[in-house]
Every structure is written in C-alpha cells, then in structure tokens.
C-alpha cells in the first residue's frame, strides 16, 4: 500500500467518524417510544459481575416489556421501549461521560443503574443533578450520613452491611444459645470495598451478640491459595466460618475446604455461593452452605422468573442481586404506569409507593429496600432464604451443616 492510498484511507475513516457522530446527535422527535439508556461494564475488570447480574436482567426485562406490547402509561396507551446501551469499559471516567451523554445528548427518559457499589456512587451526583431516578440493585447501601437528602432520587436495594451481619447473627443465635455451636467465629475478608464494609458490620454484630471472634484476617485481591488461611481457621476451633469473598475466591475457598475435609458446622463464604454455577461446580455437594442473599423457592413469581431467564438467556439467574434488579425494573415500570414519564413524579412514587414484584409486594423505607433476603442456604439444590427468620417464606436453617459428601 503506498502512502497516498493510506492517506485516503485515513481521510475516509475520519469522515465516516465525523458523519456518524453527527448522526448520533439525538433530534427532538414525536413520542413514539420510551427511551431507556444504560452504561455498564461490558468489558474490563467488572465485566464478569455485570454480565452475570446486571445485563441479563436488563435484557430480560426489555423482552418482557416488548412481549407486553410496550410500557403502559397512565392514560392506558402503550409505548415500545428504545434501549440505548453503552460500555463504560470498567472505567469511572468513561461511565461518568456515558451518563452525561445519555442524559444530555441522547436525552433518554430514564437511565438504568450501572454495576457495582463504587460505580453507582460515582454516578449518583449526576443522576441527582440531571433529575433521573437511580435504582441501584448491585450496590450495598453506602455509609453516608443523610444519604437520601444528598441524593433524594437514589434508591439502594441491596441492603446495608449492618443488616447482613444482624441477619446472620439472628440465624446463628439460637444454635449458640442451645450449645449446638460453640460461639467461636473465624472470619476472613477480601481487602476491597465489599469485604471491608461487610466485615466491619459483622465485627460489631458478633461482639454485640457475645460471639467470640477468634480469627479475623483480610487477604488481598487476587489471592489464589487459601490453604494456610483455612488451616488457621480450622485450628482456631471455631464452629462458625465466615468469608466475605468475591466469586473466584469463594470457589477456591470451597474447593480447598472440601479437599482438606474442613467441615465447620457453619460454612458461609461470600459472593459466588449464590451463583447457579456453585452447585454443579461442587458436584452438587453444597447442602447446608450459607451466604448472602437467597430466594423464596416456593414463590410462583420467582419460579416463573427463573424459567423465563433460562428460556431467554440459557442460564439461571443468581440468587442474590438478580431478582432484586428485575424487581427494581418492575418498580420503575409500575411507577411509570402510574405517573407517566415525568421523572420527578416517578421518583416520588418510587420513594413512597408500593409495588407488586417477583419479590412480592415491595415498598422502600428511606430510599432503601429493607424487607429482603439477607442470608440464604443451599437446601435440596436451591439457595433459599433463611434470614430474616421471621420473613414469610423463610426456610429453617440447617445447623450443623452436613458432611461435604
């Protein structure tokens, strides 16, 4: 190729680029659709989480709305969805810019939340400034004073670290009181936002309940070998083993525990335990393993949801954030059905209304979802909710956990 042709190529490419960016500028148009935009981590370090939990549910919801001939507005008319999706490449700056683009350039009607705690926090001020409701289904409640005053249209649906810790204590307390468990806890946590937050909550809750925290260690991101930590946990004599770990670590911790026949009476690894792949990965020998999340396996709505998820995406949803995200979209859909496309009115409705979702009837308190499954346990091949223990549909916890085989 000589230089002239190369130059021509470059100029053509530049022109094509310029043309499409101009074409991309949204023009005012008659209302023929409801424009919904989102930016999530389709690539990069956050892609695994986003592709497991967030994206499948956004796609499933879009299909379900399409099957219902569109979104229903207060006057009974229906409008189809128009979805605009961007990749934030797992970079905050790209995410911030994508949301600015969705709000100002594409002028979408609503923006769906990104994946992860840090990323939801990064865009919260933008959602607030542009006046969009933010339904964060993959972020634990941030530890900020006056959260709902600061960002009144942000809604946090995955619970707070204190709530998880107290829900765990509630499940364990009776067994400790009866002497079934010795009340000693060995805890390990990942040195990352998630692990730090949840272990801090747990530390306080265990102390309050009079449990004896005999081991409390953090490990860095990317740790592969857990043999030493697990040996130490076993040697500590604790009946209760808790890990606030990420999926890869969770799988490694479980495999190593089985390998070394470490079978504490309560075995509670972190995120990943609630993934559908967890059971087949361990040859189905996961009976009695506890973790965050859970579902009401007897709920018809949940069963239908799982069936639709499998039919469309050929994989099961996880049993923690997935149903929460889908429910958040149902909330949005119903709020639009009641208030129309006025974002402010929709935000008010989300904060104060009651919604009929796959998680049952939902209403938010102080912009947070509090009535939810915090702790679940694998029972008969399903990860079922066991705490809050007084929540309707709660299964009885199996303590002690049966042998691995």
């Amino acid at each position: 190729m000589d230089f002239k042709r190369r130059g021509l190529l470059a100029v053509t490419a530049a022109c094509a680029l310029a043309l499409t960016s101009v074409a991309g500028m949204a023009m005012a148009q008659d209302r023929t659709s409801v424009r919904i935009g989102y930016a999530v981590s389709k690539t990069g370090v956050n892609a695994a989480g986003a592709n497991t939990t967030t994206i499948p549910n956004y796609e499933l919801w879009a299909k379900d709305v399409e099957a219902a001939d569109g979104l229903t507005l207060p006057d009974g008319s229906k409008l189809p969805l128009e979805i605009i999706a961007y990749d934030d490449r797992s970079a905050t700056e790209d995410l911030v810019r994508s949301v600015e683009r969705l709000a100002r350039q594409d002028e979408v009607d609503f923006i769906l939340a990104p994946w992860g705690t840090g990323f939801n926090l990064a865009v919260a001020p933008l959602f607030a400034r542009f006046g969009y409701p933010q339904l964060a289904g993959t972020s634990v409640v941030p530890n900020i004073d006056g959260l709902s005053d600061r960002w009144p249209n942000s809604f946090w649906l995955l619970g707070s670290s204190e709530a998880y810790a107290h829900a765990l204590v509630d499940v364990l307390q009776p067994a400790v009181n009866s002497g079934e468990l010795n009340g000693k806890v060995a805890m390990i946590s990942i040195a990352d936002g998630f692990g730090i937050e949840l272990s801090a909550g747990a530390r306080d809750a265990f102390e309050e309940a009079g449990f004896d925290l005999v081991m409390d260690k953090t490990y860095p991101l990317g740790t592969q070998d857990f043999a030493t930590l697990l040996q130490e946990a076993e040697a500590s004599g604790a009946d209760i083993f808790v890990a606030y770990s990420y999926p890869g670590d969770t799988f490694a911790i479980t495999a190593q525990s089985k390998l070394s026949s470490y079978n504490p009476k309560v075995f509670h690894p972190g995120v990943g335990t609630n993934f559908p792949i967890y059971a087949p990965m361990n040859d189905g020998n996961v009976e009695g393993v506890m973790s965050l999340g859970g579902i009401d396996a007897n709920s018809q709505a949940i069963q239908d949801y799982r069936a639709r998820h499998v039919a469309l995406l050929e994989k099961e949803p996880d049993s923690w954030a997935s149903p929460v995200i889908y429910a958040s979209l149902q909330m949005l859909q119903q709020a639009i059905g009641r208030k129309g496309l006025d974002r402010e009115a929709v935000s008010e409705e989300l904060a104060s209304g009651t919604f009929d979702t796959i998680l049952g009837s939902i209403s938010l308190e102080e912009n947070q979802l509090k009535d939810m499954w915090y702790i679940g346990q694998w029972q008969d091949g399903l990860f079922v909710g066991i705490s809050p223990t007084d929540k309707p549909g709660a299964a009885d916890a199996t303590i002690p956990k049966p042998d691995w085989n």
Partner: protein
Amino acid sequence: MKTFGILTFLVLAVGMAVLPLGIGDYGHGVLVGMMSYIVLASAWALFSGPTRYVSLATVAFFGIGAYTVAVLADHLPFGAILVVAGSIGLCVALLVGLATLRLAGIYFVIFSFGLAELVRQLITWFETSVNHTLGRYIFIEVSTAQIYWMLLGLGIITLGLRWWIGNSRLGLAVNAIGDDETVARHAGVNVTGVKLALFAVSSVLITLAGAIQAPRWTYVEPSIVFNPTISFMTLVMALLGGPGRLWGPVAGAVPLYFLFEWIATRFPDQNAIILGLVFVAIVFLVPGGLLSLIDKWRARARAAGEQAHA
C-alpha cells in the same frame, strides 16, 4: 518562524479555552476526557520520548493525584490540595527515580508497571489495616467546564515545558541519552541527573492530571484509580502521534480518544476486539508515529519536484 509558531499556539490555546461555551454537559465531559489524554500523553512523552525509557507508571502517579484529593477533600481548599498532590507526586518520582533510573530499557518497563501495582497495594494495605475502610468520598463542587479549563492550563504548561526543553541545553543532553547513554556519559552529560529531572517533571504533571479530574468521580477506591488501562492508552496515544515530537502526543491523543469514544457508544459489545485491531493497525501502518508520515510526504513531494526539474 518562531513568532509564527508562538502566535499559532496562542490562538489555538484561546480557541480551546472558549470551546466549552455553548455546548452542553456531555460536550464538557468529552472535552475533559480529551484534554486529560492530551496532558497524559504529552507528559509521558516529556520523559519517555527523548530518553526512550518506556514507562508504564502513568497510572501510579495519576492514582496518587486522585487519592490525595480523596484523602484531603474535606480538609483543604481544592487549590491547596493540588499543591499537596503535586508535591507528593514529586517526592515519589524522586524516590523511585533515584532507585530505578539506573536500570536499562526493558527492566525499567517492568519496574514501572510494577510500581503502579505496588502503590495500589500499599494504599489498600494502609486503608484496610489502619483505617478499616477502603472507599473514600469526594464532595467538592467543581464544574466539568472548570475541570476542563484547569486541564487546558496544565496542557499548555506541559507543551510549553516540552518546547523549552527541546530548545535548551537540557534537550540536547536528553537526546544524547536517548541515542546512546554510554556516549552521553563520556561526553560529560550528568545522565542520571537529567533523567531524574525529566522523570520528576513528567510525574508531577501526570499526578496533577489525576488530581484535577478526581472530583468528577465522587467515590474513589484503589481499584478505580489505579486502572492499568490508563497507562496503556497513554502509551499507545503517544506512540501513534510520535513521542519524539512536540505535537506528536497531541496528534495521537485526539484522534484515538474520539475513536475510542465512538467505538464505546456505537459498538459497545465489540469494544475490546476493535480496540485490539486498532492497536495492531497502529504498529503495522504507522510505526514511526503519525507526524512522521508528514515528513515522508514532504520528502516524496521534494523528490518528485526534483525529478520534474531534472
């Protein structure tokens, strides 16, 4: 010629300064991203261009800047935070530079990549073991346009410094080092001192770029601000334009930035594949940088002209 160059530069600077007027929030965001990479690529080339030491430590300093803002956000005014951030960047650069700039070529590349990871792990360890927390919030009211203007100022300083170095004795010394370090040493150049000075200046500029942008993210944790992609993007942009020339990094950063932005919005699902192809294409089609093509074209035109005369 010189006055003409300075005049063009001034007109360009004023033109860039009035750009944010009359465009919306998204436009401001795009400008911030573009100006950020112009600064990063130019600052990177300030050290790596003439010395030919390929550094992957960009994000280490970028992250230090952002993290300093996160730590001090509630305690100092933004201007003072920038001064502190720059000073920390300078200290780290001097410390690291003294220890490593004696390393040759490939060892320096590996070390610089490790540096980003080292800083990130140190901060993580400190925050988790001492403070028992990790994420930090930044609640500073700075508008996107203001961030852009600050970055523009930083960009002008960066280009000015590069121009000044290129036209000074220092520039001669640096180029000598890039050509042959041993010869430069024998010719009486204080090789380590020169390298250290350039590395420090380049690092301070990168640190400031990170610090200026941090208020845009609200929430900062090590895995967010020490994202290695930033180092690679900076490197590829500078290489595309040609790191040895004053305007090379700018000529690489602007088109690549818009290309990436366009790909992320048009083909969000094929993003990674297209990026990979672009990198390969750059290496094969413009190994000497975009601006070197102009030289080649000129040479061709001249050769063609001479032929016509003959």
